[in-house]
């Protein structure tokens, strides 16, 4: 069996499951955001049904989309989420601490061999820990909160084997953009993407999470990786040692296998308005950019900020554009601050924003005007995603974003590593 099949078999209490089979699986962690959490049916319906939350220790509420609130309506939604968590006895409530997927990892909820559901499509981020994380709707979450279970169709798995060493200036974001570009934005619909190979195992945990985070952009149910010592060390540091990892069998059956030589990968850019509209950076170098955004559950982790700072040190953001940086969590902010990273970024001219989902989907803190172009380290470049319907979003790695901020145009980060 594949890793995905093994986790679902464990959670369904079955010895074996096969793709296509529908199983009733027990949930280990149910996460709700402010935007799609208690306020969307859930609170009212639980009250009407007269049901308590099945297990408050397994339930997490994160106010991350509307924090800091831009107006009274958003503030009202945050307040509603906060009050609901208190009344429901959910102690795992986090507000203004950053995007949920980063927090779920930092707070030790993304555990190997477990099943996580969340009312945010990027719940697949937890796959970097060998945790079957998947996004669900709010009504479906209501069902989970009442019963602790969810029906799932056992998915086929596509294997992505990334062998070799990534060149300087090429990052995990380039790996996932290339993978999505190859299979298309519906290439993994109803399937799982499993990432293996030396390029993956060489990566720090931060980088791995960038890859699994974007599995849903190819339509996938989740993106998975085999947990290793780096994952165990990460979890130990956040106080978690009690879990049982699972791994794909050597004879596991995959619906498709793709192999890559990481050494040949070039920086990739997803052009408007689809995530699979992926081009080699050299094809778009010189495109004038108004805003560069480095942040989110995809591209705002400590490693991303460190790479950005290393490129911006003793350099300035172009007067032709603005650079906004939103650390992916309060913890990332603190670590970046203590390491002097935030100082370097601010000295270069960056605007440092609160940890939040805000700009990524045009809710607040960095929305785009009509006619503006943004290069972003986030996960979606759909029409109107970051503001005006007449704006354009390009997606890239933090390295590409950082050097583009210096140039005011899309630039190739490899140029900045030459001779160094």
């Amino acid at each position, binding site marked *: 069996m594949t890793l995905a099949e093994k986790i679902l078999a464990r959670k369904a209490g079955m010895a074996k499951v096969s793709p296509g089979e529908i199983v009733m699986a027990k949930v280990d962690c149910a996460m709700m955001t402010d*935007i*799609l959490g208690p306020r*969307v*049916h859930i609170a009212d*319906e639980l009250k009407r*049904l*007269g*049901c*308590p939350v099945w297990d408050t220790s397994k339930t997490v509420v994160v106010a991350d989309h*509307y924090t800091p609130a831009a*107006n009274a*309506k*958003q503030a009202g*939604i945050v307040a509603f989420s906060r009050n609901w968590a208190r009344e429901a006895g959910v102690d795992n409530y986090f507000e203004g601490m950053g995007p949920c997927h980063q927090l779920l990892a930092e707070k030790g909820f993304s555990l190997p061999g477990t099943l996580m559901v*969340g*009312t*945010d*499509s990027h*719940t697949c981020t937890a796959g970097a820990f060998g945790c079957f994380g998947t*996004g*669900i*709707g*709010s*009504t*479906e979450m*209501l*069902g989970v909160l*009442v*019963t602790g279970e969810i029906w799932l169709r056992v998915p086929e798995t596509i294997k992505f084997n990334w062998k070799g060493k990534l060149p300087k200036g090429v990052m995990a974001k380039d790996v996932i953009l290339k993978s999505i570009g190859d299979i298309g*934005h*519906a290439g993994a*619909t*109803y399937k799982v993407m499993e990432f293996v190979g030396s390029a993956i195992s060489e990566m720090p945990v931060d980088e791995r999470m960038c890859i699994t985070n974007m599995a*849903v952009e190819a*339509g996938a*149910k989740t993106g998975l990786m085999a947990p290793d010592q780096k994952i165990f060390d990460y979890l130990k540091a956040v106080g978690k040692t009690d879990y049982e990892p699972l791994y794909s069998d050597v004879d596991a059956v995959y619906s498709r296998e793709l192999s890559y030589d990481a050494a040949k990968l070039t920086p990739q850019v997803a052009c408007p308005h*689809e995530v699979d509209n992926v081009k080699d950076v050299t094809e778009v170098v010189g495109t004038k950019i108004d805003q560069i955004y480095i942040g989110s559950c995809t591209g705002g982790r400590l490693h991303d900020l460190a790479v950005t700072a290393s490129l911006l040190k003793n350099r300035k953001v172009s007067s032709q554009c603005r650079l906004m940086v939103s650390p992916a969590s309060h913890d990332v902010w603190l670590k970046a601050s203590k390491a002097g990273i935030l100082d370097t970024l601010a000295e270069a001219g960056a605007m440092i924003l609160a940890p939040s989902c805000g700009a990524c*989907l*045009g*809710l607040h803190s960095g*929305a785009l005007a009509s006619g503006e172009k943004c290069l972003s380290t986030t996960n*979606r470049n*759909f*029409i*109107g*995603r970051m*503001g005006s*319907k007449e704006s354009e979003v390009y997606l890239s790695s933090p390295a590409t974003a950082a050097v583009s901020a210096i140039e005011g145009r899309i630039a190739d980060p490899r140029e900045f590593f030459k001779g160094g």
Partner: protein
Amino acid sequence: MSQYIIRGRVHKYGDNINTDIISPGQYMELSYTEIAAHAMEGVDPGFSRKVKPGDIVVAGKNFGSGSSRETAPIALKYAGVGAVVADFFARIFYRNCINIGLPVVELPEVEDINAGDELEIQLLEGKVLNITQGKTYQFTALPQHILEMIQEGGLVSLLEKKVACK
């Protein structure tokens, strides 16, 4: 009319109509009625004014890709849409539609269907009648328990019957 039969006029769209088009992020803080007023704004700003109760959205591949936001099917339902027909759907959107009781039909012949055609969808029989063109298309009917959920108005009604926490 039974909820197993939906009859209405077609609003036709192309491939990859994602959740940010169906329910733009910036309106998600508003009420369902206001969210519905902005439905499909990314590709068709006049949609909510044109759509009549029971009308059918017909689109191409990968309908509903992107976010898990339930406001996407809610926007369509509150705008009056009776069903969505597409070549195929993104998985979270597909589940969300069923869970809120909005019928979804996967049909490879969507290219054949034109804007303004009148369709009758027979969910139990797995048939789509194109009344305007005098054609019939077959699709694999959803399993009985899923159809029951749609008939009941979604997962909540089903939960009501199944759980007795009170």
